[in-house]
């Protein structure tokens, strides 16, 4: 167990190094903005990965929490002139509170019932964004959200946003990696395997489930708040069911067996449509084809494919040396 944690740190350091040099290898600002969205999506995906892949609780309503983050930020900064960062904190706290209130009854449900309950939750939030016109601006959304600033200085450039959001994404990743390898992580995996067995071993099953649900909702709200500050405009379209499903696709295509799956999934699913723009009208077809191919040929996701590849190379290595 300790060894795997160490190797995770190794990869994390290498990954951090890669993240910090990439902007200098890119000749174009456009790619930096793509990577900014990768970082935003990664924060949500890592949180969802903890909930779905480690604790075994499905959520089809994470776009709702993402939306709560974005809308809290938008409303507080435009209508109430709340200072930036304070709004982000309130957004995260509000999403956590709602997740706690909602999670306490719903997480007692299992399997399909939980999926449907979270689906309903997501749809209700989407309806609220659409219909609570006085506050959310209704379907036409909210314009003029201020950008982020640090120590009173506005962040103007995409490069600054890139480093800021990636710092948070990497921090989230570090927390998630530690959490998975900790006592909490083992408890989560136990209740993923069998809730009855976990309860028999003295694990507070519903307590852990609610906590992890709250954590992943808070991360989604953090990302939502960043999104609102970066794009400066929001409307309900981005916070519907399709985004919830996209998030699930990210963690499944990336690989459900590790937190790194969420990382790879968010990188691939956010940037792939951009690379495919060159194919003009066929981009959607190729995108779908790639997703289907991954699901058919790499049932354990990209990270699972990499693991199998590594094992094969490892076997060959030992065979040669023998």
């Amino acid at each position, binding site marked *: 167990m300790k060894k795997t944690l160490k*190797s995770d740190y190794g990869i994390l350091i290498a990954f951090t190094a890669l993240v910090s040099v990439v902007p200098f290898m890119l000749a174009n600002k456009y790619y930096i903005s793509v990577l900014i969205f990768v970082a935003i999506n990664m924060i949500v995906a890592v949180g969802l990965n903890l909930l779905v892949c480690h604790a075994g609780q499905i959520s089809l309503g994470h776009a709702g929490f993402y939306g709560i983050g974005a809308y809290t930020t938008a409303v507080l900064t435009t209508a109430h002139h709340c200072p930036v960062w304070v709004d982000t904190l309130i957004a995260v706290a509000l999403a956590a509170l709602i997740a706690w209130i909602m999670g306490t009854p719903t997480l007692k449900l299992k399997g399909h019932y939980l999926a449907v309950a979270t689906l309903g939750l997501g749809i209700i939030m989407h309806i609220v964004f659409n219909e609570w016109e006085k506050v959310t601006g*209704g*379907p036409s*959304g909210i314009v003029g959200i201020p950008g982020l600033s640090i120590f009173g200085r506005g962040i103007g450039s995409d490069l600054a946003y890139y480093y800021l959001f990636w710092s948070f994404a990497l921090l989230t990743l570090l927390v998630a990696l530690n959490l998975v390898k900790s006592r909490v992580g083992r408890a989560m995996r136990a209740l993923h395997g069998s809730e009855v067995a976990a309860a028999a071993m003295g694990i507070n099953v519903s307590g852990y489930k609610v906590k992890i649900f709250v954590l992943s909702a808070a991360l989604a709200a953090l990302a939502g708040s960043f999104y609102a500050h970066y794009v400066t*405009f929001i409307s309900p379209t981005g916070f519907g069911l399709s985004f919830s499903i996209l998030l699930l696709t990210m963690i499944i295509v990336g690989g459900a067996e590790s937190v790194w799956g969420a990382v790879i999934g968010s990188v691939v699913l956010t940037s792939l449509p951009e690379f495919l*723009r060159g194919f003009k009208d066929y981009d959607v077809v190729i995108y779908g084809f790639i997703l289907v191919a991954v699901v058919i040929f790499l049932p354990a996701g990209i990270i699972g494919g990499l693991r199998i590849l590594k094992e094969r190379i490892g076997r060959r290595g030992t065979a040669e040396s023998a």
Partner: protein
Amino acid sequence: MFKSMRVLFTVMLLVGVTFCAVLLSGCAPKQKKADEAYKIGAILSITGRASPIGQPEKETVELLQEQINKAGGINGHKVEIIVEDDAGDETKAVMAAKKLLNKDNVLAVVGPSLSGTTLAIVKLFEESQTPMVSCAASVKITDPVQKWIFQVALTDRYSIPNILRYLESKGIKKIAFISDSNAYGQSGLAEMENTAPQKGFEIVAKETFGGEDTDMTPQLTRIKGTDAQAVVCWGTNPGPAVITRNMKQLKMTIPLIQSQGVANAKYIELSGDAANGVVMPAGRMIVTAQLAENDPQKPILLEYQKAFEAKYKKTPDHYGGHAYDAVKLIFKALEKVGPDKALIRDEIEKTTNFVGIDGIFNYSATNHNGLSEDSFEMVQIVDGKWTILKTK
């Protein structure tokens, strides 16, 4: 253990390197040649829920590109229009805009198709000082006026006065307003609430419906219980067609006024016989044949329809018309001032009496939606066909 780490490192490194290679490959700095093509961008909702809007826009953009290049381009330069799909999604629109502005370095951008996607990227165009001619209809896009943002679509601000004038001519003062619960319906309601009371009208009932609802009788029954003299409906297909049919079923005899959002063949098809007698404001495209011979828009409407039908074997609609006007405005500016973004912007702002599909455009420093109330005709459906009503 060390071996597995090494392998993983190698994999990571490989992934990283290919990633960067792919990223870099597309963006080697190109030498500017004297006869290089003029690059224009277009961000349209070609796929996704809004594809009925984005698709004809894309077809029109491609048609115009083909036409101008066949005619030798602009001042000897070929024109390249780079079309990006935003799938009706604001995040994708932001990325498409970043690509066009930073990677393709376009001179101006046509679109986006929708109000949401437009509002999401307005800031990027202001920052990068690139002119954008949006095809979307929200009043918010050009009110307040922003330096680099223009609009070609007809807005509610111009259609509602036409409706009120028509109602007035019929002696109607009390109206019921029923709107789609989307941005379009919401904007219509807001505009009506602003305008109607000032002109002495009273909105006696306000109802909403969901775009996918298949039965609106509850809302209409409530309206029936009021003393409304006419129903004004604000929505896009298929909802307004359901209302049209439900009103017939409920034997409501008060007139029904629809918005410009359903001034298309699909509405008549969906409503069937119930559509007869319905009145609405519409651009001139659907009534081209009935226009007077000396109408300045007639030749351009006929020419566009002929070219579109020849290439795509179907009739164009007013969405394609928005793209047509946006592209032509940019072409005209480009022809006059050459490839300079600031000069193109100034030139678009100076446009006067430019005859387009949507109307006759007159822009100024304080008006970035160049149309006016005169761009609409009030039309009535008679025997399943559009007929111009003379109200002016």
